[in-house]
């Protein structure tokens, strides 16, 4: 069985585990320290990491070929979510601008009405 590179230090209030930053072990340590009893395996964590990595856009995946470290993955996910929020705001502005120029008899409105009817 693989020996995880963990170090344990004890204090009066808590027992802490530390691991090398950015590893899958780090995620496992965080999970243990979150205090939940459900047993989670290393494979499940790897699966979560690869699932998140698969959702990131293609250019980000190309930049980080192969497995990303956990901290890199978190950083990329955060920046991707922020960029998606910005895109939603931008597209809402554009849609609002387009809708002011649309009147109710235009073909666009007819298309939308047709879609809503079906």
């Amino acid at each position, binding site marked *: 069985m693989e020996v995880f590179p963990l170090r344990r230090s004890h204090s009066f209030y808590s027992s802490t585990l530390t691991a090398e930053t950015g590893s899958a072990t780090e995620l496992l340590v965080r*999970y243990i320290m979150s205090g939940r009893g459900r047993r989670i395996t290393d494979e499940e964590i790897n699966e979560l990491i690869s*699932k998140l990595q698969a959702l990131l856009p293609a250019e980000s995946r190309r930049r980080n070929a192969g497995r990303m470290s956990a901290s890199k993955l978190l950083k990329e996910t*955060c920046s991707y*979510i922020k960029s998606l929020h910005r895109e939603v705001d931008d597209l809402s502005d554009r849609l609002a601008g387009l809708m002011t120029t649309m009147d109710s008899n235009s073909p666009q409105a007819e298309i939308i009405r047709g879609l809503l009817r079906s």
Partner: protein
Amino acid sequence: MVALRFLRALSLVRCSGPGARSPSYRARGIRRAAYACMAASAGPRRAWSRALLRKIRRRPGRGLRRPRAVIRRRRPVGGGDPLEVALRRLVPGGGCMEYCRLLEEAADYVKCLAMQVRLMQTIVDSASHVNSID
């Protein structure tokens, strides 16, 4: 499903606003509709969709409401890592989740957000395309 819901919401935004409404007011309404449709289509299984709908439906300035008896974990998880804290802040309802749950919810949230962005882009593209034909 989410497309139909969003188009219906868009038509409501149009009907409710007469010509005097500013575009920024309408844009805010569209943005709120987009998030609401996204969360409603995701369903109540996901914590992020529940948190998002709660935030949207909570009207500001109504005063204190009587809290309902809901068993929900309220204790915020103290994070040491600034990246984890940032992710918790970005994902709706992420403040009180376990770490692995946070990763799962973030994955689902990213997927639905990307789909919503693609949908809005398609609508904008087709509307501007029809505009340019005239």
